[in-house]
Each structure stands twice: as structure tokens, then as C-alpha cells.
């Protein structure tokens, strides 16, 4: 029982770290004009691996919700599930179009692809859509985000400061 609680706690912490990393990476990668095309491409490729870890950590939820989707289900969970699939397909289009118009990652592998204008506009469109979907995803998980931030960031920080104050008083 205690082992399961510790495992869940660790998983939540890992999820929090991964999610923050993906969020920051996305914010930097979203503006290739200023971060530079190399950072944009390599960071996005790395974010792909982080997204796989994010999916792995949410595996149980995905499997359970996929089984229940046809039957009775909470409307918020249903919306969340549909939104997550939309996000997944948007990431697929974003990554594919990104690789097809790549100026750094794909050429560095010795592959040259023909220039394609349709993929470029599709890349821009899917990136803008991803920003919108990310906002909706964040809003739907806002309760979890606030709860986890309180538990693993603000409360430990508060405890740290209060223990320091106590030490100062006793000294």
C-alpha cells in the first residue's frame, strides 16, 4: 500500500517535471525567428521524446478511458479524451511537416528533401492550432496543475523558509 503511494507520488513528480520541460521547450521552439532555426528544430525533436514519456506516464488513463469511451462517462473526461487525440494528431502533423521542411536536423542526417510550400503552411497552421489546444489542455487540467504545484513546489518551499526562520530565531 505504502509502496503504491510512493510510486504514484514519484510518478506525479516525474510528470510535473516532464510537463514543465515540454511547456518551456514549446514556448522557446514556438518562436524560431528569435531562438534560431537550429534551436527550434533540435528542441522540437527532443520534445518529441518528452511527449512519448508524457504518454507513457498517462498510459493507464489512456487505456481506461479508451475502454470506457463508448459507455457511460463524465462529459469532462470525454472532452478531455477527444481533445487529447486532437492534440496527438496535431503533433503528428506538426512533427511531420517540420521534418519535411527541416533545414538543420534532416540535412545533418545527410538526407535532402525537395522544398515544399504546402508543408510550410501546414507547419504554421498546426503550430498555431497546437498553441490553442495546449491552452485548452492546460485549462482542463488546471485543478491538477494547481494541486501539484501546491504539493510539490509551494509547500516544500514554505517549509524550507519556515525552518530557516526557526533556525534564525534559535540561533
Amino acid at each position, binding site marked *: 500500500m505504502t509502496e503504491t503511494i510512493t510510486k504514484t507520488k514519484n510518478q506525479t513528480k516525474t510528470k510535473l517535471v516532464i510537463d514543465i520541460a515540454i511547456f518551456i521547450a514549446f514556448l522557446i521552439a514556438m*518562436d524560431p525567428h528569435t531562438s534560431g532555426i537550429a534551436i527550434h528544430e533540435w528542441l522540437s525533436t527532443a520534445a518529441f521524446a518528452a511527449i512519448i514519456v508524457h504518454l507513457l506516464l498517462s498510459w493507464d488513463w489512456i487505456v481506461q478511458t479508451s475502454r470506457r469511451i463508448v459507455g457511460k462517462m463524465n462529459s469532462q473526461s470525454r472532452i478531455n479524451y477527444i481533445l487529447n487525440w486532437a492534440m496527438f494528431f496535431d503533433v503528428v502533423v506538426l512533427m*511531420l511537416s517540420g521534418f519535411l521542411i527541416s533545414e538543420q536536423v534532416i540535412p545533418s542526417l545527410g538526407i535532402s528533401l525537395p522544398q515544399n510550400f*504546402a*508543408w510550410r503552411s501546414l507547419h504554421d497552421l498546426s503550430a498555431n492550432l497546437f498553441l*490553442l489546444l495546449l*491552452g485548452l489542455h*492546460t485549462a482542463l487540467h488546471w485543478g491538477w496543475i494547481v494541486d501539484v504545484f501546491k504539493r510539490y513546489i509551494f509547500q516544500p518551499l514554505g517549509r524550507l523558509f519556515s525552518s530557516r526562520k526557526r533556525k534564525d530565531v534559535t540561533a
Partner: protein
Amino acid sequence: MKTLGKILVILVVFAVAMGITYFAVNASGSSSTDLPQFENRERPFPANGQFEPGERPEFSGGEFEGRERREGDGGGLMFGLIKNVGIIAILVTILVVPKNLIKRKRLQTSTSTSV
């Protein structure tokens, strides 16, 4: 299911979705790989980017706002970050605040009816 198997499932779904997208976009005919017509016929500029003296069109003035101008611009990066965070914050506010208000209202009505 072991982690490796899960990763494989995710990658297979990714690959299938990518394949479908690739063929769908190519089949729609919108992804013509041909370069614009002026590239094949008459180029408005030399292929090597070098101009003969006097050949290069005069720059009419104003500030160039292309990638070269903006790359590495700290202010620009901050603006991009703030803009994207702002969009996400607006979406979160639009969805979370009314939801919380409705929740609070429901709680109030339920407590008032129970009293």
C-alpha cells in the same frame, strides 16, 4: 505491458498517423514540389545571389524585418514568449473562471437548500 512495448505502440501509432497525413496531403495535390514559375523561367534575381554593379534593385528604405534582423533579438524572444503565454493564460481564464463560479454557485444553492 512492459514499457518498451508501450513505446513501440506509441511509435507505431505515430508512424501510421504520419503516413496517412503524408499520403493525404500528397494526394490532395496541394503539396506540389514544383518551384514557383519564376524559378523555372525568368528569375527576378541571379541564381548565385550576386548582382552586377547597378543591377541590384535599390532599397527603398525602412527597416528590414526578416529573420536575419530578428535572430538573437532578446526583446523579440521575450515578446514571443509573453504572447504565447498570454494566449494560454486567456484560454485558461476563459474556461476556468466561469467553471469555478458555477461550482461555487451550485455549492451555495445546495447549502442554502439544506439549511
